[in-house]
């Protein structure tokens, strides 16, 4: 399967939210990494077919998704970023309602709902109102909902927002398990979520794709540009002004050890460090990626 996004642009008035994006997605997990406001959600909405684009086209196996229409939506699973409505629905009823909208048969729908509740570990709250669920539980329900029709294209907009570390790992395993024979598009600004599961990473900045490749390929970009330096605490500010400073940790030699991404060696005593995805993020965004629940 091949999902081709050609010259997609979205403008809101004068503001360009997504700027001439060109990518062809194949089976596997594709991570869309970007800071707040970089246009991830806007791009996902266009791929999901809910938001019209200003320019460009999206096609699945050579067919425009607007022409495929229901055939396309039939293979689509979508978890929107804000999943806060449906408060008055019971968990079970909500899933059944989504089944109805996804065209699933009554008997089959019931069975499928139970399977999905089990899969995301919500079988004990199936009779609770959605409004009474915790944030993480809601998110899991959103994932269950997206999987009901066994989609071949799965679009997840910040799916792990609000999940605790245990659930994060569980979710990562679920994605791994699902990623065969499917296109999974996964938007996030949390690097650790995708570092082991993404077959491909797209880095998005101000509506554009600024880097595109496998994790290794992206790490190669910053190879030789990541440094570890021991400095005094009073030097920290001047370093932060001059360089992109990543992780700061304790140092045995001086006050602190800083991780710096820079084209030039920042200090005589700086030693080259092994790059990770966080450094790539830092290199492109000049700021530290959000680390959530590092346990």
């Amino acid at each position: 399967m091949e999902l081709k996004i050609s010259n997609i642009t979205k403008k809101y008035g004068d503001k360009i939210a997504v700027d001439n994006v060109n990518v062809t997605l194949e089976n596997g997990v594709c991570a869309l990494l970007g800071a707040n406001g970089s246009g991830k959600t806007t791009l996902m909405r266009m791929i999901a077919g809910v938001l019209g684009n200003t320019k460009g086209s999206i096609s699945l196996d050579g067919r425009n998704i607007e022409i495929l229409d229901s055939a396309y939506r039939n293979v689509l699973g979508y978890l929107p970023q804000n999943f806060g409505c449906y408060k008055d629905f019971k968990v079970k009823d909500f899933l059944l309602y989504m089944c109805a909208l996804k065209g699933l048969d009554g008997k089959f729908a019931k069975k499928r709902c139970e399977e999905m509740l089990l899969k995301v570990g919500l079988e004990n709250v199936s009779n609770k109102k959605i409004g009474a669920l915790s944030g993480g539980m809601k998110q899991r329900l959103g994932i269950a909902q997206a999987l009901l029709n066994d989609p071949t294209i799965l679009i997840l907009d910040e799916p792990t927002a609000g999940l605790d570390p245990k659930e994060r790992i569980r979710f990562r395993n679920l994605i791994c398990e699902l990623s065969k024979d499917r296109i999974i598009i996964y938007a996030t600004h949390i690097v650790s979520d995708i570092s082991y599961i993404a077959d491909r990473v797209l880095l998005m900045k101000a509506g554009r794709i600024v880097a595109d490749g496998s994790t290794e390929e992206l790490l190669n970009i910053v190879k030789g540009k990541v440094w570890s330096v021991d400095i005094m605490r009073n030097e920290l500010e001047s370093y932060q002004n001059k360089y992109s400073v990543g992780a700061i940790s304790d140092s045995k030699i001086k006050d602190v050890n800083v991780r710096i991404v820079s084209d030039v060696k920042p200090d005589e005593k700086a030693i080259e460090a092994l790059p990770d995805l966080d450094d790539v993020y830092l290199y492109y965004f000049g700021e530290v990626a959000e680390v959530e629940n590092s346990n």
Partner: protein
Amino acid sequence: MKNKEIKSALDYYDVKLPDEDKIESTVLNVINSQRTVKTPELSFKRIIISQISSVKNSFWFFSFLFLIVIVFMYLKIDSEYTTLFLFSTTPFLNIIALPTLFFTFNRERMELEGTCLIKPATVFSAKSVICGALDLILILFAVLISAIVTDVPVLQSAFLGFLGYTSSAFIAMCFSLFFKTQVAMAVTSAIYAVAVSSVFVFEDVANFILNMNFATLSIIFLLFFLLLSGVVYYTKNNYKYERVVFLYGTENI
């Protein structure tokens, strides 16, 4: 030369290309065949049946209440204005149907439901058929009671009942295009209240309506019926995500 011969030989066979629908359904089948979940053939009838359960409970309740009120009033009121009663009660049905029809249309729900096989616009059509059908039955029932209790010609009261219904439905739908459901309900109720009171307060208005002949009545009814069909059709085609973002605020992110 050889190519031409082959071509002419092949021309002899008439190949009929299947129509677009068939091609699409093949594509759908191929895509489906690779998945563990298969989607059954969807007919509009099936969509309607699936939507009956998601019609708001308050809709059934208030519709039932409407029926009781109609029966009760006909048994109590005894004046020449009884017929007008039909004209002025049927708009009530629209106000109770609005939340059911437009319930799906908020930004968050549209974002999710717009990606499903059955689109919100189709859900809207299914629900308007459900509400419309029930309202039709209720109005016919009211007309029947009117025919039994009063000596107004059946056709006259039927036309009046449906005129009240279609005209107010048209107004309600128009407002729903520009305002949130609650606002549309409030505005429609206000217009409806003014209309009803004017009918009962000003004798001229009442007499005018009572004395309209069949031809005028049916023309006005037909006019509103067409307008209503038009606005329902327009609504169905216009409830896209962007439209709802416009109606329900642009807050995003």
